[in-house]
Each structure stands twice: as structure tokens, then as C-alpha cells.
């Protein structure tokens, strides 16, 4: 049995907050503008004042991106099996149940058939509010199945990512989702199925070291933190100040790791264009 560990590990998954302080979720952390929920939703959760991109849950992301009613969810029934009977402050099972309640999702990744601007695709969308979008067996399995479904259906895979990395409560199994999803992508590459990656804040660690960097095209929303090692750990290692935009999409674009930074308002149109291009080539 795993030892009972009595301290929360949740702070690992706290989304970085530019201001460092605890504000109302509808208050812009960049310019402090405050919005009603309906205002934010209708503006795709982008600050009308300064352009800051608020986090978007998986279900809302689907609303934003997809042709209406086009999403057919698949592998919805999959749940974590808690293979290590893991327990920190509370049991892993309890945490999963809580996250399910909070988000209405079975795990941190939704998967299914979709249409964007009338183009068929397979879609995966991650939700950071489900245990920090961490990748355990369910996320890995659903992503691998998405690749397989994209091959079967011969449609592109669009993956919208948001993740702090591995789900530590699943120990080595969480690490193994990294090579597992890489293998799934390589099968897809062999089948010449297009793969478009959208990185949203944050997409880090295990995700960057697996499928999130293996797309034919890789785009990110502005401000997305996308690094393998987080800024805090890097800073502790190098013991010097990091560049201002360290690990952010803007820096990654300069260093050659992104095809484009796409404003959320343009994301649907850009994905529609990319799907058209990849579908017309075939």
C-alpha cells in the first residue's frame, strides 16, 4: 500500500496568476477590469479592455469552436481506476469525485467527433480545472483513442491542450502516458492523418514532452505558458532572473517552437482554414 500522505498536492496545479494575488475569477488579472459572467462568455472570455485570455473550460471551448451541435462525445465512460490506491490529504478517488462534481467532466480530457466550419475532425479538449488538466491513464487512453478514431474516420485530429503535466497520483502510470500517446501519434502520422495542436494556458511538462509538440501544425493562444520545466524550478536551478516572457507563447514563437500565436477570437476561423487545407490535400 502507498503510505498515507497528509498534505495536499493541489498547489502544483494552481494556474499561474500574473498578479500573484487572489482575485475574483471574473476580474482581469492584468488590468483589473471586472466582467459579468455573461459578458465574459459572449466575449469568449477575453478581456475587452486589455485582451487578456481568461481560462476556458472544455465544454465552453466546444461551444466557442465547433459548429453547433456537431460534437458527439466518445469514450465518455472512462474513469480513473486509482491503481496505486493513492492518498494524500484525501484519497485520489475522493479528489476525482470532487473534480467530476465541480466540472461535470469524467476526467481532464473530452474526446469526440466534431465539425469546425463544416469540416469534419476528431477533437480532444482538455480542462485545466479538472485536477490541473493533469495526464493520468484516462487522459492518455482517451487521447490514444482519439488518434485511433481519427485514423478510422480518416479525419484530422484537433487537440486543444491545457495541462500542468503528469497526474502524480497515478505514479509511474502517469509517466507512461507520455510514450503511450507518442505511439498513438506516430500511428496517426503513418496513416497520414493531419494533427493540429492548439496550446492554451498552460501546456507544460508531460504534455510538451509528448503529443503537444508532435502536431503537423502547432498554434497557441497569447500568453500561454508552454515549458517543460516551470519558471519557478528553472529559477531555482539557474539562480538568476528569468526573461519576462520566459516559457510563454511569445518567447516560444521567437525561438521557433510555434507556427502562430492566434487570438481566441480568430481561433475558430484559423482551425477552419487549416482543416480545409489538410482536407483538400487529400
Amino acid at each position: 500500500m502507498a503510505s498515507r500522505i497528509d498534505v495536499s498536492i493541489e498547489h502544483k496545479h494552481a494556474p499561474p496568476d500574473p498578479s500573484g494575488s487572489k482575485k475574483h475569477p471574473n476580474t482581469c488579472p492584468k488590468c483589473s477590469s471586472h466582467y459579468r459572467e455573461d459578458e465574459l462568455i459572449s466575449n469568449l472570455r477575453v478581456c475587452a479592455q486589455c485582451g487578456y485570455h481568461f481560462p476556458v473550460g472544455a465544454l465552453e471551448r466546444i461551444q466557442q469552436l465547433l459548429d453547433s451541435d456537431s460534437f458527439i462525445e466518445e469514450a465518455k465512460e472512462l474513469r480513473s481506476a486509482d491503481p496505486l490506491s493513492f492518498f494524500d490529504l484525501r484519497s485520489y478517488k475522493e479528489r476525482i469525485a470532487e473534480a467530476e462534481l465541480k466540472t461535470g467532466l469524467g476526467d481532464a480530457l473530452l474526446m469526440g467527433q466534431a465539425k469546425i466550419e463544416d469540416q469534419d475532425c476528431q477533437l480532444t479538449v482538455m480542462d485545466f480545472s479538472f485536477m490541473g488538466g493533469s495526464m493520468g491513464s484516462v487522459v492518455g487512453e482517451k487521447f490514444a483513442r482519439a488518434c485511433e478514431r481519427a485514423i478510422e474516420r480518416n479525419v484530422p485530429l484537433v487537440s486543444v491542450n491545457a495541462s500542468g503535466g503528469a497526474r502524480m497520483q497515478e505514479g509511474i502510470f502517469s509517466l507512461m502516458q507520455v510514450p503511450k500517446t507518442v505511439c498513438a501519434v506516430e500511428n496517426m502520422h503513418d496513416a497520414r492523418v493531419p494533427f493540429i495542436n492548439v496550446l492554451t494556458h498552460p501546456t507544460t511538462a508531460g504534455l510538451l514532452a509528448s503529443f503537444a509538440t508532435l502536431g503537423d501544425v502547432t498554434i497557441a493562444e497569447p500568453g500561454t505558458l508552454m515549458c517543460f520545466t516551470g519558471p519557478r524550478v528553472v529559477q531555482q536551478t539557474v539562480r538568476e532572473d528569468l526573461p519576462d516572457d520566459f516559457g510563454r507563447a511569445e518567447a516560444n514563437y521567437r525561438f521557433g517552437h510555434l507556427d502562430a500565436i492566434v487570438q481566441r477570437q480568430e481561433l475558430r476561423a484559423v482551425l477552419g482554414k487549416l482543416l480545409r487545407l489538410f482536407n483538400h490535400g487529400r
Partner: protein
Amino acid sequence: MAGELELRLRDRLAKLRGLHLPGSSVSDEVRRIEQQIEVMETGDERSEDEIWNSVELARHPERPYTLDYIERLISDWFELHGDRARMDDPAIVSGLGSFAGRTVAVIGHQKGRGDAVKRVKRNFGMANPEGYRKAMRVMAIADRHGFPVITLVDTPGAYPGVAAEQHGQGGALAASQATMARLLVPTVACVIGEGGSGGAVAFALADRVLMQQHAIYSVISPEGCATILWRDAGQARKAAAAFKPDAAHCLELGVIDGIIPEPEGGAHTDFDAAAIMLGQSVRSALEELGQVDAGELRRRRRARFRSIGVVSS
């Protein structure tokens, strides 16, 4: 813990035995699962002390490193250097040599032994993206010429530096795995010390993944885990007991295919004996893999990793 998992494994075993697929790919899988169940039945739970002993041995400053094994197992060794773009990363060693009568490519993390200068030179076995790109280049040469690839995994993790991030550490780790997933030659990965997270897995997408008896393999270091759990790296021992990065546990979970024995007291007590044991395990793995057609080898390799993980529905 073993209870639920064992039931699950027995169920899977029964299903696999019921299948009559062409080729022997199922029998590989059956053997692997049988081995796991055997470990569960015979293996007592390892104590916190025993696990911590492995952690200490895995990171023992006198433990044999990649070049120590190459020196003892590989003849006509020729090291290949450089990523052809930016640098030669000394934290990774790669090259060609003769092993058991045929040419192989060997790629491994390399720690420096001795004074601080030597350890820093090898960056404590923590590679930059350029190191992984060097390795991919060597894999491509091996693939072209049909040389089996042997990887020796021994890293606390990929280097968490500013330039490492700027030059695409995450992408390099993913690309290294993707390259291994594409190879049409037999591949054997051996965790010979620390199998630290992404930096380790970048070299571990192999047909056979083996661990030395006292090596460790985990998603996070004991200290990193303890820092997150208790904000106190000093609690590493407790964290290790919780995550169990030891070989027995990894075998039990079906993450690795076998355990390579070490000399009494650990590999550092007798480099030659440790090398002989490592060599025998790698040799027999390569002999087995040599029987399999290249395309089938690759298919099975991917299927093996595809199958890891536990979900319910």
C-alpha cells in the same frame, strides 16, 4: 494494492489466452503478464528501508555509469558527437561499437564521477535538447544500417535551464520518443541508475525495457515529490516509499519487462560483475528481438506502450 491489479491482470491473461492471433505477439504479452503475476505472488512488499536503499544505490556516486558499461561490454567503440546544429552535449554519450559479435548503437545519459568539475562537465547527466537531438541522429544512422539500439538511462531528469527551455526541451523529448517509435531495428532500454521522468522516457520507448535491480524509474524524483507534497525535500524517503520507484514495483505494474540483477551490495561494488549481468540481459533480449520481422517489431513496440495504464468505465 496488488489485489485489484492482480485480478485485472488475470482477467487480461485469460482473454489473451483465448485469442488465437497469427504470430507470437500475443505470447510475448502473455509471458509479460505471467511474469507480473509471479512477482506479485512471490514478492513481499518492499519496506521503506529497502526502497530507500535502492534510491541511494541508484544515485551512488560510485555507481557505474554509461561509459563504464561501454568500456566493459563494447569493443571497437566509436563515439559519435554533436547534433549538427549547435553543440555536442556531454551529458549524453552515443556511438557505434561491437556487442556480442555485431554492430550496435549505444546511447546513454552520462554522469561525471569525482570532483565537481567532472560532474559539472557532464551536467550531472541532465541533458539539454541538443543532447537528445544528437541521440536522434545516431538512432537514424542505426536505423539506416540495421544496427540494434541499446539505450542506457541514467538521469535525474532533463536539464531545467533557461537555454534548455528556449531551445525546445519538451519538443526534443517528444521527438526522441517519436524517433524510437519509428525505428525498424530492435531496441533495448536499460535503466541503470536514475530513470527520471521525461528525460528518462525519451530513451525508453524500446522493445524491451529493463531495470537494474537497484535502479529507480519514476515520474518525479523523491525530492521533487516531497517538495510538492510537504514543501520539504528532506521528506524524500517518505515520498519514495509512497511512489515506489524501484524495479520490483515497476515490474509488478507491467511498466518494465525484466530486472537485471546486480552484484551483492549494488553495482558499484563490482563494475565487472555488474557489466556481465547487464550484458547477458541485453544479449538475450536482442536475441529474442532478432527473431521478429522489422515491421512487426515496431507494431508490437507501439502496442506495448499503448496498453499501459489502468482505467475503469
